[in-house]
């Protein structure tokens, strides 16, 4: 997992560690936290020194005095019922007197601005609030070193913003922070130094600026550079000169503004018309759907939503947690019956048909692939659903082969599903449903927990399902750059209603309306909006096409 790694973290430094899935970055963090060798055992050579003391001489409890760690999954690190109890729990274990516990509790509630959460039940919090409480619980004892393992990867945009805000507060106190992330974007803005890992080794090391200059090396390690530095690099390659080294949209705007000539605005399509079904029929029709959860909460989750999804389209439903995306998707797939309204898939009322008929019409892939893999090999798992629907063995085997091949999993057909990597598990979960050949497929967060390369691979496969098999694909996602690049339509939900619905270019142009939902357009789109360009680009390639003619070589230089 780690191959001859040597690093030094300086006191008060914010070190970011990035790399593709399986590159060893979380393992490195575990070594720093003492989890290896004290909790997870294995062959380890070399030495880790914490303030000059070898970690072999400390116990895990001894580590806890100096080092606190926040894990990826907020759900797994909150074990008390009330937020207050969760925060003081670490202090109780260390025998801190009650008066000091009270004082530190008050301080941390104020520091992270979570006073209102004090009496809340932990499992009732949103994802972002949970992670915020987890960071506060790790921070309450004022550790010298705070380690964060992918703290935002499972959060919606609002949740990620809350978590980042908490990390910013920690940084203000000049504490040593080491943060692991799959994606580089979150780190370039805040980190003092970045490490890029691949195959257990450190392949790049430097300031965020230095790392962003090394685009080919980043790409070789399976990472994508943040959009703004990539755009700048590509424009420079095309002969345009931009003074400065912007890493973020905010830094880029003042550098681009003086060198852009709007009278030469190139022609981009004003909006991409959503594809219409050839036979005039929609794949899914949602008519005035209202859904209220049963008592004691009786929360209205969907408030009179109506829309149609044309055949063979790739639609993204976006919005923050609690906006009703998953509830709507579950209504569309027949798992939840709307309080009122109707849903038709391929012309049939999805709530008036049997489980088997529904499985043939509309597939649903859940966020966690591990809850939907039931058999002892990948092949058996795909065959299982087909046999449930009455397919003969030879027919089931053939369709399973096609599906596994389509999703690049045929070579792994005999592997136990739980032995596959996370990305492979996710693709297998899609393969098990795609093999049933439903006319529509809903996928909840298809790219969560995947690095950039895997996420693009998954989206390309979904695009293939749409274009080659004519499947209508609906993804629920927080990954805006992916939605912008691959989807032909975006539905933005907020408080159970559809706030925006249209082609990505039109939806992302509505920046003010989007802000209500904490949905942020991709950085290049935001940059174009702030520069007053319209229509806006959706990808770096489009941005280069749009920006380059506006910047004359001589003026820019």
């Amino acid at each position, binding site marked *: 997992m780690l191959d001859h790694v040597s690093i030094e973290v300086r006191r008060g430094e914010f070190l970011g560690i990035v790399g593709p899935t399986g590159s060893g970055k979380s393992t490195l963090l575990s070594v720093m936290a003492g989890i290896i060798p004290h*909790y997870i055992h294995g062959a380890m050579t070399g030495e880790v020194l914490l303030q000059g003391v070898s970690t072999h001489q400390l116990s*895990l*409890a001894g580590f806890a005095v100096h080092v606190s760690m926040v894990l990826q999954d907020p759900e797994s690190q909150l074990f008390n*019922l009330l937020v207050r109890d969760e925060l003081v729990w670490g202090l109780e274990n260390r025998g801190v007197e009650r008066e000091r516990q009270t004082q530190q509790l008050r301080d941390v509630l104020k520091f992270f601005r979570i006073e209102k959460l004090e009496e809340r*039940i932990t499992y009732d919090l949103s994802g972002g609030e949970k992670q915020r409480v987890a960071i506060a619980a*790790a921070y309450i004892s004022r550790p010298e070193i705070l380690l964060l393992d992918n703290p935002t990867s499972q959060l919606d945009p609002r949740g990620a913003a809350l978590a980042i805000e908490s990390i910013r507060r920690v940084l203000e106190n000049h504490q040593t922070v080491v943060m692991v992330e799959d994606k580089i974007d979150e780190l370039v803005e805040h980190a003092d130094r970045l490490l890029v890992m691949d195959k257990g080794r450190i392949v790049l090391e430097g300031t965020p600026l230095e790392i962003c200059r090394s685009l080919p090396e980043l790409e070789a390690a399976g990472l994508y550079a943040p959009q703004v530095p990539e755009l700048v690099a590509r424009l420079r390659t095309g002969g345009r000169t931009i003074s400065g080294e912007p890493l973020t949209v905010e830094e880029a705007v003042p550098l681009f503004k003086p060198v852009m000539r709007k009278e030469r605005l190139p022609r981009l399509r004003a909006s991409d018309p959503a594809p219409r079904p050839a036979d005039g029929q929609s794949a899914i029709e949602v008519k005035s759907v209202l859904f209220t959860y049963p008592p004691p909460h009786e929360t209205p989750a969907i408030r009179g939503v109506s829309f149609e999804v044309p055949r063979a389209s790739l639609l993204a439903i976006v919005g923050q947690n609690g906006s009703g995306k998953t509830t709507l998707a579950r209504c569309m797939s027949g798992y939840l019956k709307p309080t009122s309204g109707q849903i038709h898939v391929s012309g049939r009322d999805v709530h008036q048909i049997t489980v088997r008929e529904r499985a*043939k019409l509309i597939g649903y892939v859940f966020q966690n692939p591990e809850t939907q893999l039931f058999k002892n090999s990948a092949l058996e798992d795909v065959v299982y659903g087909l046999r449930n629907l009455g397919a003969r063995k030879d027919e089931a085997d053939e369709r399973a082969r096609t599906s596994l091949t389509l999703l690049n999993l045929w070579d792994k057909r005999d592997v136990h599903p739980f032995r596959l990597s996370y990305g492979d598990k996710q693709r297998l979960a899609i393969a098990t449903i795609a093999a049933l050949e439903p006319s529509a497929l809903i996928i909840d967060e298809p790219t969560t927990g995947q690095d950039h390369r895997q996420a693009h691979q998954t989206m390309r496969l979904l695009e293939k399902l749409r274009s080659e098999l004519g499947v209508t694909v609906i993804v629920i996602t927080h990954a805006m750059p992916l939605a912008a690049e691959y989807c032909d339509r975006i539905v933005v939900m907020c408080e159970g209603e559809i706030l925006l619905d249209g082609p990505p270019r039109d939806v992302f142009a509505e920046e003010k309306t989007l802000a209500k939902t904490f949905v942020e357009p991709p950085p290049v789109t935001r940059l174009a909006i702030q520069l007053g360009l319209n229509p806006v680009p959706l990808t770096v390639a489009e941005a280069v096409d749009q920006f380059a003619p506006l910047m004359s070589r001589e003026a820019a230089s």
Partner: protein
Amino acid sequence: MKAIYQYSGISTPIHKLDPRTKLVMTLCYLLVSFILPSPLRVGPAVIPVPFVMAMLIVLAIWAVLRVRPWDYMMLWVYLIPIVGGITFAHVFFLDGPPFARIPGIPFHHLSIRGFFFGLDIGFRIVAMGFAFVLFSMTTDPFHWGLAMFKAGVPYKGAFMFAFGMRFYPLLQEEYFVIRDALKARGSDLLTSMNPVKLMNGVAVSAIPLGLGALRRSQNIALAMELRGFSFPEETGVPRVLYRDVRMRRVDWIVVGAFVLMLLVSLVLRLTGTIQQAKF
């Protein structure tokens, strides 16, 4: 969505009572339902005591927690066959004046005493179930764990007991996802009323549910250790608990009232002041 037994987190006088008080209340209440004869004749009225006592808890859940009986319809669906089965068995197997004779079948004595006796047992079970629901919905499991710790249970044992109550809803949520994932594959194994299919479904879901729970519990155990769960044992520094449970005056009054109710029922029963209605 919260399950019916989950701690409600609202503030009512019952929520504020010490967990030990609520335990004594529950035990006394259930014992009274066993001690009082049933059906009980009070003047011209005949009262099926366990039924009435079970319904009083249903009303208490409604009044205190604002959860209506039809909000937990599925619980009733599971309870009705249990009560029906117990009653049915006693009609055949308990002696007493028959209320019907069916010539030609071996069980020709259908016992009216058995019918009421079976109903009583059935509703005592219902009362126990609902009493547990009321207890768990009004008692913070960690408050309960703290009370256990004060009663001499080792801290780690008491904490893990409370944590188990906190962890169970997560497992339940995962079970629902697995059930729906099976539906997505055209299988109704976990929603079938056929017990054989249902058992098959349980076997199929055991892999993702078991492995998921195992992985999650490993992560949680690690997260606990990182927050110093074993620090007192490893270093000898005693743990200092932030919260405390203390029996207040109102707790003693409530305990006294329920113990008194139990004693009065016992005396009434033993002296024959109250009697079972004759069939």
